[in-house]
């Protein structure tokens, strides 16, 4: 891999090449579904929560390199965090953890943030329904 002449940072390419936590999850506690094919980006994020702590996260993503890498990164970032902590993960934090994104690709990190929020939302809803 010739990272030197890549659109993306080494870290992005590393996550793109070997994305962590790919796949569906059985019985997730929350599912986030954002994006649409018109924009070229769709992300599904699944979380498993125990005692308000996100113990597992998985994703499926249709999209560009940045979309896949941010998906991978966000699942890494949330694991072990409380739901409240996870809610505070911004798109900038995801981009920074990846060593930066090209300016035109910053919107992809927004997708990851939104997917996470949407999954947590879903978790809250499900929690609410259980109570």
């Amino acid at each position, binding site marked *: 891999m010739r990272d030197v002449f890549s659109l993306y940072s080494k870290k992005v390419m590393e996550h793109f090449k070997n994305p962590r936590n790919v796949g*569906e999850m059985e019985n997730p506690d929350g599912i986030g579904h954002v994006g649409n094919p*018109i924009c070229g980006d769709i992300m599904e994020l699944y979380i498993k929560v125990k005692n308000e702590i996100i113990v597992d996260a998985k994703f499926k993503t*249709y999209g560009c390199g940045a979309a896949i890498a941010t998906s991978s990164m966000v699942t890494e970032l949330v694991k072990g965090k409380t739901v409240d902590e996870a809610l505070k993960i911004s798109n900038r934090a995801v981009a920074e953890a990846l060593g930066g994104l090209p300016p035109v690709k910053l919107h992809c990190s927004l997708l990851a943030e939104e997917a996470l929020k949407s999954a947590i939302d879903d978790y809250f809803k499900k929690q609410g329904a259980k109570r």
Partner: protein
Amino acid sequence: MKRIYLDYAATTPTAPEVVEAMLPYFTDRFGNPSSIHSFGQEGKAAIEEAREKIANLIGAKQEEIIFTSGGTESNNSALKGVAYANQHKGNHIITTPLEHHAIIEPCNFLEKSGFKVTYLPVDKDGLLNPEEVKKAITTKTILISAMHANNEIGTIEPIAEIGRIARERDIYFHTDAVQTFGHLPINVDELNVNLLSISAHKLCGPKGMGALYVKKGTRMVSFMHGGEQERRRRASTENVPGIVGFGKAVEIAEEKMEEEAKELTILRDKLIKGIFEKIDHVCLNGHPTKRLPNNINVSIEFVEGESMLLNLDMEGIAASTGSACSSSSLEPSHVLLSLGLSPELAHGSLRFTLGRYTKEEEIDYVLEILPKIVDKLRSMSPLYKKAS
């Protein structure tokens, strides 16, 4: 790792013979062609020789060729030059939704200063219908511009027929032949064009070098104002090495064009066939037969173009996509959308464009690698899950 370049429509390597021809004009015969001393005059002689080669290849007169800095400048000069000079006759321009940005954007600019632009309809293969041109013409139409072949999908347009219609009605006709010049035979009289744009870096010539054919008698104003170069039609010190390189590239193209087109057509069809055999949910974009010999454009469902490109790149293969993600506009290719493709399919498009140095093994390698990449990406695609 060996690198395989299959993006010849984006740009080509400069042929070694072309670089060889250019070299003396950097350091030795470096004069400014406007200078009357021998340094200048040898530069002048060199550019006129190149001009002759280009004129000959398209059946034009030497003085009908204006050198420019590329296809974009040729297009800007043609459109703005004709529009401004013929404003008194009308303000209507006809073009197509298939055009390169280097046509679309000048049209947008002209629209801001009072011109009206009509975009012709195209069919699902990106083919224009000359009858539609007739319908679009009004008494105010001063210019029609339609590309010779499309850079993304490779469809070759019925330029001669459109030109005939324009000529009968005394309307200027321009064609963007950036993708065909040096690859397909071109004769400006047979095509019935008044103006024709070409660019050197698409035929193994240098980047930053183009030309515009302007039929004698065409009313237009200059685009690049300044000194008296190019018979006062395009100012700026001539890029002598670039022009010499362009001339050499044309000389080689003239010699190899026919054979290359045959060979590339075989490789092209092999690659298309292979993709269809090895990958499901694929469609071909562009016309199946009225197609550039080197162009393969397919849409692969449930996966996005850029991520395919990056994976191909990691395996040493350079290709291109019409997906939004490859541009800063965030919109997928206007060309693919104009064919009626869904945004989804447009995002999943992949273009391979072959060229002079493409080898059959390279095609085989792509056919080995691509299906694996598609599998991998589909396995992580939320769309594929739903479809399967």
